[in-house]
């Protein structure tokens, strides 16, 4: 029996103190109360107004108690379920748990065969989902692109319909609006067994992106309303550029993007109290020479860690960002930027870390980057798991047993722990020089490509039930009918 003994399970990491978080939180409340946000959606303004928000034209302001009420009903811990009931693919959102996955909608993709950059096509969604399903450290799926070879209005619906059969890991879906949100939801319901079953075991998350600074666009708000009415866990995240569309200082951008996200929070919780909600957003800096949103900047890691701490302070999970790069190819820069942001994300335990596989500042998706980052995430997760201290791990009796000049190689204690205490990389090479030469002197990037192609050649994701597959075909046929005469 021990008293007043503190255990650090995992590695301690903290950017902001409680006092600093309180100041940031008060800043957010001030923005929402005094400055307000523009909400370009009549019904949403009406809903907010009835809940006590002050509406003047498009501008919506709300007193702190309205925000705090929404925070009180939004859950900190919940589960997103694998479509096939495989518990290893469920995602348990809660303190100290970082999950990783790719990101949405770049226009281009790195072809897995030619390794060239080209427009993203439907088959790429199949490739991404299959590889995501196989990777041990990737927990959820996004497509890494916008499908260019189907009717434009159906790009998001086809993406979901194509990925869903190829991975049982939960998908984070985006959409253009109500119609394709509805297509996606019907597909999810077909697997879940109807709306009631879905509400018990939600199997996907819906992603909505409003605009910085301080604008809730019609589409983003409409999708939140859709998600809330259909009990779909929802992400409401802006993608702000410090120095461009948000204050240049990390504290300032965190306040602004949190206020932007909170508009979605309040709306979702008014419509359906208790709906799982992920706070956004993507925080990075505008490079003042290249004029791009950088995905490889240290400020991204730092600001995302600060935002994560603020979300957790407020009792919300966060939509994290990492494993991304400004590099144009699978090179040292991609590895450096991706690995460090993954590590920071793991340390801050932001709840869903997306954009693993973003390259070229978000312009090109690369599943090769995702595969390389799978190893970086494994590495980071081993570190964040920390050092376990108990009678058995202290091993004083083992040290006595082996004594001076002995060895531990096949000691019971070693046998008991060496597989769980060590992390083994899938890609980082630890062979001796001769072995490496014999294996073709392959640099990391070649091993990444080999592993990706091997997964695609061999991995069999859990199949859909035949009736689910039929339902998806019917849903997509109906969707095609809907857009047949639209340009």
């Amino acid at each position, binding site marked *: 029996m021990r008293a007043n003994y503190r255990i650090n399970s995992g590695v301690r990491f903290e950017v902001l103190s409680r006092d600093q978080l309180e100041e940031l939180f008060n800043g957010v409340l001030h923005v929402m109360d005094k400055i307000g946000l523009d909400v*370009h959606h009549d019904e949403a303004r009406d809903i907010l107004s009835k809940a006590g928000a002050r509406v003047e034209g498009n501008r919506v302001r709300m007193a702190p108690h309205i925000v705090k009420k929404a925070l009180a009903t939004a859950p900190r811990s919940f589960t997103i379920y694998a479509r096939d009931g495989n518990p290893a693919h469920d995602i348990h959102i809660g303190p100290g748990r970082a999950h990783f996955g790719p990101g949405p*909608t770049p*226009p281009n993709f790195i072809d897995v065969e030619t390794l060239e950059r080209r427009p993203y096509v439907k088959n790429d969604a199949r490739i991404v989902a299959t590889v995501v399903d196989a990777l041990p450290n990737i927990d959820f799926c996004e497509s890494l692109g*916008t499908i260019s070879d189907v009717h*434009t209005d159906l790009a998001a619906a086809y993406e979901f319909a194509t990925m869903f059969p190829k991975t049982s890991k939960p998908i984070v879906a985006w959409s*253009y609006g109500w119609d394709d949100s509805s297509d996606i939801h019907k597909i999810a319901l077909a697997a879940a067994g109807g709306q009631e079953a879905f509400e018990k075991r939600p199997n996907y998350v819906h992603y909505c992106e409003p*605009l910085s600074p301080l*604008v809730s*666009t019609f589409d983003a708000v409409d999708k939140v309303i859709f998600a809330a009415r259909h009990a779909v866990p929802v992400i409401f995240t802006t993608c702000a550029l410090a*120095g*461009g*569309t948000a204050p240049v200082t990390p504290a300032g951008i965190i306040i602004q993007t949190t206020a932007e996200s909170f508009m979605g929070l309040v709306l979702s919780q008014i419509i359906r109290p208790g709906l799982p909600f992920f706070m956004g957003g993507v925080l990075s800096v*505008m490079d*003042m*020479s*290249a*004029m*791009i*949103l950088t995905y490889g900047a240290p400020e991204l890691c730092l600001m995302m860690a600060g935002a994560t701490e603020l979300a957790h302070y407020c009792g919300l999970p966060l939509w994290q960002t990492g494993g991304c790069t400004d590099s144009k190819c699978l090179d040292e820069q991609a590895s450096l930027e991706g690995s460090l942001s993954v590590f920071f994300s793991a340390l801050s335990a932001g709840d869903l870390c997306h954009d693993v596989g973003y390259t070229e500042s978000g*312009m090109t998706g690369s599943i090769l980057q995702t595969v390389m980052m799978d190893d970086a995430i494994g590495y980071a997760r081993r570190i964040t798991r920390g050092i376990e201290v108990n009678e058995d791990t202290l091993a004083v009796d083992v040290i006595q047993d082996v004594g001076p000049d002995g060895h531990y190689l096949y000691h019971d204690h070693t046998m008991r722990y060496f597989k769980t205490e060590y992390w083994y990389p899938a890609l980082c090479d630890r062979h001796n020089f001769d072995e490496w030469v014999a294996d073709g002197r392959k640099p990391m990037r070649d091993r990444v490509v080999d592993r990706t192609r091997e997964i695609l050649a061999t991995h069999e994701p859990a199949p859909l039930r035949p009736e689910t597959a039929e339902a998806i075909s019917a849903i997509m046929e109906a969707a095609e009918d809907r857009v047949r005469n639209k*340009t």
Partner: protein
Amino acid sequence: MSQLIEQITTGVIEGNIQGVSELVQKALDEGLEPEAILQSGLIIGMNEVGRRFKVAQMYIPEVLRSAKTMHAGQEFLRPLIAGGKAGRVGKIVIGTVQGDLHDIGKNLVGMMCEGAGFEVIDLGFDLAPEKFTEAIKAHQPDLVGMSALLTTTMRVMGHTLKAIEEAGLRDKVKVMVGGAPVDAEFADRIGADGYGHNAVSGAELARKLVNAA
């Protein structure tokens, strides 16, 4: 006198908006020709800004401030220069296409174009194709600039270009496009005359398209 001109040049480079207007007034008071103030002071300064940006000695926020300064000085001189042209190289109508509320990039292009000597007519954002055709008829610009940030709205640029064609206005204007998801290949595909990857290259492109570069 040359000292005042030099100070105006330096003021543009440093982005001293208030200071340059005062210096221009002072130069006029001392009897300097408006055309000389413009050509030897303001424009020389802005050219230097462009050069420094290219060799990474200046950053975008500084360039924008300089453009704003340049524009302020130019507006000050405009009524005093015969014909009212005052270094004007052309007229451009700009806007963000329908469905898209993102207008910061477009605003930056507008500022840079003003700094580069254009008269800029900013139509705003979320603009239906006919807003562009109406504006071309009303303002008779040399150039039209379209912007979109979203992969979901960039296709509207194509629709807008089609509307311009159908209104029989395509040969009256050059069309340039920009925005994060846009690239040269896309610009080519929809039949635009050019693509700028940022505000500075957008303004440069505009000058090229009116043969002022």
